């Protein structure tokens, strides 16, 4: 382990709530290493354990077993106020009895910093989040977006080693949310602080993060850059949770190292990378993104053929729902780069062409 490069490390963390027959693992042997200056996102549906992991790093939950390392030091036993970690809470949790500036100064005051240092840091933070004119307002006199900025400034003011963000954008409307996504990324670059961001919104995760960990049922399923997560999902859950995906079955006919010859449901045979342990005769699942499929008149270059079931126009693109020959359905999304040209109609027969690298074999 290179201590200098690692900000936070979770080692075999298990968190069990309840006991006996009602026991339930909120975190099931989770290990993850988060680097310094990284924008790291924990992504997953509600109840997947991402918030539990975040609260454990903050110090509000204790692991049932395992350890949390901050800067190479074990911290699982430390109370929250002894960790150089700050949180931007989902509800912001701004102190209603204090002004904007007083809220930002709170952490520094608790650390008994000098008055001049606190004043300077508060000014700096107010400037950083562009809230200088609001410094003497009460927190219930400012808008939701402004509260969000104050919550960020308050958590950043003590310059923590790690900043935890617990779905901080979920209370904002769509437009503000988009703006804050860019803003958050900027703040992370400017301050150089490690951000750990928790969300269930895959778009947020993909647009802001350096790396993403996809979680489900207390386990981390895949860790990778947004591109890796999207383009190379390791399993069915990841592929399904992030973006839209078509799943189709294939049978392994031959195998040579990582490569294998597969027979698709359409009967077409292809050669593909197989990372899983599937042997000859086994069924594997292929994931294909709807926007990677081309529609064409049926010919030999097509891997599938099908019948158009319906056509849905979305403005930027048009989605075709198809019944695939040999079983199953697929969704194809075509960009309306030259305007919507509704050549195809329900009932039309078409061929589907998929580049080999767009077909990802999942480990089942």
């Amino acid at each position, binding site marked *: 382990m290179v201590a200098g490069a690692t900000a936070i490390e979770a080692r075999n963390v298990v968190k069990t709530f309840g006991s006996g027959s009602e026991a339930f693992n909120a975190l099931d042997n989770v290990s993850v290493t988060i680097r310094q200056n990284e924008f790291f996102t924990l992504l997953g549906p509600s109840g997947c354990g991402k918030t539990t992991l975040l609260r454990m790093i903050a*110090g*509000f*939950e*204790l*692991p*049932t*077993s*395992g*350890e*949390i390392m901050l800067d190479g030091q*074990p911290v*699982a*036993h430390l*109370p*929250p106020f002894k960790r150089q970690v700050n949180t931007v809470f989902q509800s912001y949790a701004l102190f209603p009895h204090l002004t904007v500036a007083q809220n930002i100064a709170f952490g520094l005051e608790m650390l008994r910093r000098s008055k001049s240092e606190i004043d300077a840091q508060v000014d700096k933070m107010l400037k950083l989040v562009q809230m200088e004119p609001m410094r003497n307002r009460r927190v219930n006199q400012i808008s939701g977006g402004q509260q969000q900025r104050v919550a960020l400034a308050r958590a950043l003011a003590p310059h923590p080693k790690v900043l935890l963000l617990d779905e901080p954008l979920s209370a904002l409307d769509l437009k503000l949310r988009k703006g804050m996504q860019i803003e958050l990324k900027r703040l992370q670059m400017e301050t150089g602080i490690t951000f750990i961001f928790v969300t269930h919104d895959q778009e947020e995760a993909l647009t802001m993060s350096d790396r993403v960990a996809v979680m489900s049922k207390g386990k981390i399923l895949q860790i990778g850059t947004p591109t890796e997560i999207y383009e190379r999902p390791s399993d069915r859950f990841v592929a399904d949770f992030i973006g839209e995906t078509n799943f189709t079955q294939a049978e392994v006919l031959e195998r040579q190292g990582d490569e294998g010859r597969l027979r698709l449901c359409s009967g077409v045979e292809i050669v593909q990378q197989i990372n899983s342990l599937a042997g000859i005769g086994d069924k594997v699942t292929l994931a294909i993104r709807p926007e990677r499929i081309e529609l064409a008149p049926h010919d030999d270059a097509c891997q599938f053929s099908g019948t158009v079931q319906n056509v849905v126009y979305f403005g930027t693109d048009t989605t075709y729902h198809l019944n695939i020959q040999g079983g199953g359905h697929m969704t194809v999304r075509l960009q309306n780069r030259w305007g919507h040209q509704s050549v195809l109609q329900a009932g039309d027969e078409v061929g589907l062409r998929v580049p080999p690298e767009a077909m990802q074999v999942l480990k089942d």
Partner: protein
Amino acid sequence: MSEVTAAGETLTATNIMRRGRRPRFDVKHQPGFGFMAVLCVLMLYGPIVLLVTYSFNQNPSITIWTSFSFDWYVKAYHNEQIRDAAFLSLKIAFFASLASTCAATMAAIATTRVKPYRGLTLAYTIINQPLMVPEIVTGIATLVFFALIKQMTGIYGLGYLITAHIVFCIPFAYMPIRARLEDMDLTYETAAADLYATPWQTFKRITFPMMIPGILGGAMLAFVISLDDVVITVLVSGPGEETFPLYMIGAIRRGVTPELNAVATAFLCLSALLVTVFFLVTRKKKE
């Protein structure tokens, strides 16, 4: 396993948990507050428990416990002075709670679930007025007022004391009845009206039966409040009207007897019982 002591030594959550040393960091916890809560309950109940215990002590001495007995209760019952004082207080409480509950029920109907009208705030203020004036002030004011009336009319009797009780019982009877009414959904009454019930029928068949828990609660609270009162009772009672508080003040002055413990315990239990029933009757059955 090595002893976990100095900071910097490798600590893992696992061995801490195994030793049961450190529970989860509880944000709600404040050290010593649980102790204070227990102390608070002890402070509230200590004297009461002592009183109750003594009332069952066969030995008249307060400091020596001989054996459990009901002797003092029997003695207190046969003491005519105690019995008369106790029954007088119960009688006053009965009539005061009856009258105040009727008045409070009517007032609650007129002030709850209505569009705000002129005088509504005034009505609230008047009904709650007895709660805002210190008891001693109410006591002497009532004393002065009744003295004037007695002088003018020449009429004497228990009615004065009962009336004084009715006044301060009304706001207490009013509270639970009003709370009950406010919890009641107007749709039942609307439905009844839709099914051809006249306003009077609606009241008799729907509103009133639904109000009963509130009314019972109000009556019980009024009864308890009347029994509890000392200041106004002491100041307003006329000659020959020795209520229980008056008897007790006299008895304390003369020197405490174990019978006093017994009768005090009986009153205490009656109040506690009524309040318990009150809580059960008016408890909201949500959740």
